[in-house]
Structures are given as structure tokens and as C-alpha cells.
């Protein structure tokens, strides 16, 4: 028996969200009196045995370049085989782009109930109940999974990575790799950017910044902090910023440790995408801006004056200047 954790990789490295999933899965395995095992598909350059520190006893892997390209059907097939081989009681994904593609398929294939967007460990004293984010972050639902096998996909930054001692045993999976029906023709990545979906720190700009030519104050602060950047919907709709930066009800939902909103009014549809952030800072020249009601810290002032000074203070704190 096992709790099986899908360790998602990009460019040969396991993603940070997978360390959260591994730590979560390891704790669940402990609660269920079973062992936590990881699965990695494709060629990764990371030192897999060292991932034992997240509580993984074993890591199943297929080192094959074919699997460097993600394919939901192929991946689902292999994970289902691994789940059967290890007698998985629960299977854990990150609720990211790839997780959203595989988990629903696997749910049907294994007749295993799925909860996406989990924000905490299941209650297992009476049934199996997982708390998940609903209404775009405005509420939670406690969802009971009634099937024998359970599948959970965990929201980014919802579970703290825990590191201990331990080495994982790495085993090569013996599974036939099925033919892919989807051909990946190109992968276009903005290199050097911190991926927004799993970022711990995010600096975001709104229409208050007046135009794309003024974005340096946002990107400078982000750079000083080591943060990702995002924006409100009108900003990406006007092509001031790329579409993948749009957060909110109809954009990406994020929950970083720190979200700094600059020149954003705080409309309910914007808040829906960011209100699970641990700490929210709002910088707005209008003291009546609704965002202040959702904020932890705020500065009422002109962004063009305030933000460069914050950037300087951050650099000072970090000893950059």
C-alpha cells in the first residue's frame, strides 16, 4: 500500500509545487500508516534519492526522453499502472497545469474520487474529507471522497514544504509507454521569469499605473524582492502586460506569501484571484479604494513616488546597496 505523489518536472527539474505535494503526501501516508512514494516521468537532472528528505521512501521513474514532453493520456496511463503496482490508496498532484490535465482522467480510469484545489490535509477520523478552495477563493468546501482510492490535487503554497532526513530508493518502472495522440509542436517559455503560479512573492500592477511605459517601478520592485509579476484584467486586456500575468476571477488564482497590489482598486473579481495570499500590501492613492479592506498593510499615496522608495528599502534590507 502507498500514497503515490506525482512529481512534476519542467526542463529536467522537479517543480517546487511538487515538494509541497511530496511533503503533504508524506504526512498523509504517515496518518494512513503506509509509505509515501513518488513518481517522476522523463529525464530529470535532480538527485532523486535526496528527495527522501521530503518523506518519500521510494521514487518510481521512467528515464526516457519521450516523456520530457507532457502528454496527459500517456502520463495518466503510466501513473495508473504505478498506482496499481504500489497499491496506492491516495494519489497526490499539484493543482497546476499538468495536474489539471491528468487528475480528472486518472479519476475516471481508476474510479477514484477527485478533489482539486485542496488547501489542507484530509480529515480521516470519520471518512475521508478534504478541504478545498471554492468560489474562487472566497470560501472553502469540505468534500467527502467516497471511493476506495482517493485523488487530491493540492493548491500551490497551501502546504508548507517539510524537510527531514532520509534517502529515497529509486526504482525504474516497467511500463509500456503508449503512443501519443497529441503532438507537441512547440514549447514557448519566457525564460528567466519566475513562474507566477507557484511564486511565493508577487508584485502586481493595475490601471493606476497609467500605461506600459511606467511598468519599471513594478518590475524593479519585483526584481529586488525576487518576486513574480502579475496584473489586473484591464491591464492585460489593453496589452500593457502579457496575458499570462492576469490574475483574478477570470485569470490565474494565486496564493503567494506576499502580494503587493499597486494602483489596483480591488474589485471583487480581482480579489477572487488573490485573496488567499498570506500577506497583502496595497499601495493606492485613493484611501477609499476597496482593496484596503482586504489588505494587511497599506500605503495611501502616489505609486510613482512610493514604490521606488520601497524598492530602495528592500535593496537596503537585502544588502544589495
Amino acid at each position, binding site marked *: 500500500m502507498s500514497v503515490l505523489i506525482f512529481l512534476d518536472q*519542467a526542463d529536467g527539474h522537479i517543480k517546487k509545487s511538487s515538494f509541497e505535494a511530496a511533503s503533504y503526501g508524506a504526512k498523509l501516508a504517515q496518518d494512513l500508516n503506509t509509505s509515501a512514494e513518488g513518481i517522476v516521468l522523463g529525464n530529470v537532472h535532480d538527485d532523486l534519492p535526496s528527495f527522501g528528505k521530503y518523506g518519500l521512501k521510494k521514487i518510481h521513474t521512467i528515464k526516457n526522453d519521450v516523456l520530457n514532453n*507532457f502528454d496527459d*493520456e500517456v502520463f495518466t496511463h503510466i501513473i495508473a499502472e504505478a498506482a496499481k503496482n504500489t497499491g496506492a490508496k491516495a494519489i497526490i498532484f499539484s493543482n*497546476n*497545469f499538468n495536474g*489539471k*490535465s*491528468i*487528475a*480528472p*482522467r486518472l*479519476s*475516471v480510469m481508476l*474510479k*477514484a*474520487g*477527485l478533489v*482539486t484545489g485542496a488547501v489542507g490535509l484530509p480529515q480521516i477520523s470519520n471518512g475521508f474529507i478534504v478541504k478545498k478552495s*471554492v*468560489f*474562487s477563493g*472566497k*470560501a472553502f*468546501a*469540505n*468534500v*467527502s*471522497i467516497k471511493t476506495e482510492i482517493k485523488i487530491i490535487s493540492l493548491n500551490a503554497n497551501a502546504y508548507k514544504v517539510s524537510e527531514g532526513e532520509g534517502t529515497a530508493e529509486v526504482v525504474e518502472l516497467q511500463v509500456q509507454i503508449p503512443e501519443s*495522440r*497529441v*503532438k507537441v*509542436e512547440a*514549447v*514557448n*517559455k519566457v525564460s528567466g*521569469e519566475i*513562474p*507566477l*503560479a*507557484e511564486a*511565493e512573492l508577487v508584485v502586481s500592477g493595475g490601471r493606476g499605473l497609467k500605461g506600459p511605459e511606467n511598468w519599471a517601478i513594478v518590475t524593479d520592485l519585483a526584481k529586488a524582492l525576487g518576486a513574480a509579476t502579475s496584473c489586473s484584467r484591464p491591464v492585460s486586456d489593453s496589452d500593457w502586460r502579457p*496575458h*499570462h500575468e492576469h490574475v483574478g*476571477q477570470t485569470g490565474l488564482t494565486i496564493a503567494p506569501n506576499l502580494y503587493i497590489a499597486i494602483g489596483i482598486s480591488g474589485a*471583487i*473579481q480581482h480579489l*477572487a484571484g488573490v485573496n488567499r495570499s*498570506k500577506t497583502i*500590501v496595497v499601495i493606492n492613492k485613493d484611501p477609499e479604494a476597496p482593496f484596503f479592506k482586504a489588505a*494587511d*498593510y*497599506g*500605503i*495611501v499615496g*502616489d505609486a510613482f*513616488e*512610493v514604490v521606488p522608495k*520601497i524598492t530602495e*528599502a528592500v535593496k537596503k*534590507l537585502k544588502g544589495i546597496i
Partner: protein
Amino acid sequence: MMKILVCISKTPDTTAKIAFTDNNTKFAEAGVQFILNPYDEWYALVRAIELKEADPATVLHLINVGGAENDPIIRKALAIGGDEAIRVNSNSHDDFYIASQIAEVARQNHYDLIFTGKETIDYNGSSIGGMVAELLNLPFISLATKFSLEGNTATVEREIEGGEEVNVVNLPAVVSCQKGMAEQRIPNMRGIMSARTKPLKVVEPVPADTFTEIASFELPPAKAGVKLIPADQPEELVRLLHEEAKVI
């Protein structure tokens, strides 16, 4: 001749007050305005309509799994476009059950292309598309931002961490749609009039399992309130973030 199915769902308006009744087991619907799920309306439906406009022989069906109270929303979708709608008469919230109903209708009608939205903005499952694809043994492309069709071959851009991926797939296939696919359309008078006479078929659900059940809802704890820092003391903000909030 192409046949397209668009899956549409009903959600509370984006500004609706979120509250619960019956001992926190039900969403409080009183006074709440319901809308077509934005991803289904703005992206999935409009892109499908564009495909039909490009090839008028295309047949475009809409499907909703829900009760009779969903009919106004379905009519609104028909006012934007589409030839006919099918409502599977069930109020289940279980993703597998809903996907099973959609798959059953799809099996009978042999669609070349099935569009879903990226997710419903109330339960945020992001699950139905992948489940339908697996139930029908079809390829699935999730979170598509662009879709083009040449003959039987679709080229689809999908979002991935920090970028996008270009996929090529032969139909039939299932695609979940998000921003980028199309631009929002407002139904015009002619659309609203013609929607009244378009067929809205109601079918009873087929037996299917449910895998999950919502035990209860809860609201997040209220925020303590904002701590305001004078505009001329940005160092103080940085100090608080470092020492008090411990986030930098």
C-alpha cells in the same frame, strides 16, 4: 460536416455575496443572480460560434446538466449562438456524475469536437473536460488559449507554467477553453428572438456513480484589518514585512 458540443454551466454572478444555509451545507441562493459561467460563455461558446461562422454547415449543440431553473441561462447561451441545447435533468454537483451524463449524450450524437470552460467559478473543479475525454477515450487539451482548425486537424495553444505549448491533434477531441480563445460577445436582439424558438431538449440522466459529496462549507476567517503606513516611511513597510509578517 462538423459537429461541436459546448458544455455550459450556471454560476453565481461574480459579485454575488457568498453565504451558506442549512447548517453550512448549502450555498445561499436567495437574492443571488446567476450567470453563464464566464469561461463557457466568453471563450468556449464564442470560439465554437466562430467555427460555425467559418463553416456554416457546422452543427453546434450546447449541453447543460442541471434542473429546470437553468433554462433561462441556457436560452441566453442560445441567444449568443448555437443550433440547439440539451439539458440533462439532474442537480448533481459530483464531477464524475456530470461528466458521465455529458459523455452519454456525446456517445449518441458523435461530436467531432467538445469544448468546456477552464473551470466553473463556483466549485472550481477544472475536472469535467478531462473526465469526459477519458470516458469517451478521446485526446484532451486543457487550458487552451488559441484554437485553429484545418480539415480534421486542430492546432491548439495551451498554457503551461511560464509560457505556452503548441499542440496538434486530430479530431475528435476535447478541449477546455480559457482567455485568448475568443472575445466576449453580447447577444443582439435577433439572437434573443431566435433563441426562443431554438430547440431546448430535456433528457433524463442515465444511472452513474457519484465519487464525492460536499459535507459542508466554510468562510475564511475575517482579516484583522489593514495597518496603514505613512507614505513617507516606506522603510517601515519593509521592516514590518521582514520582522512582523516574516514574508521577506
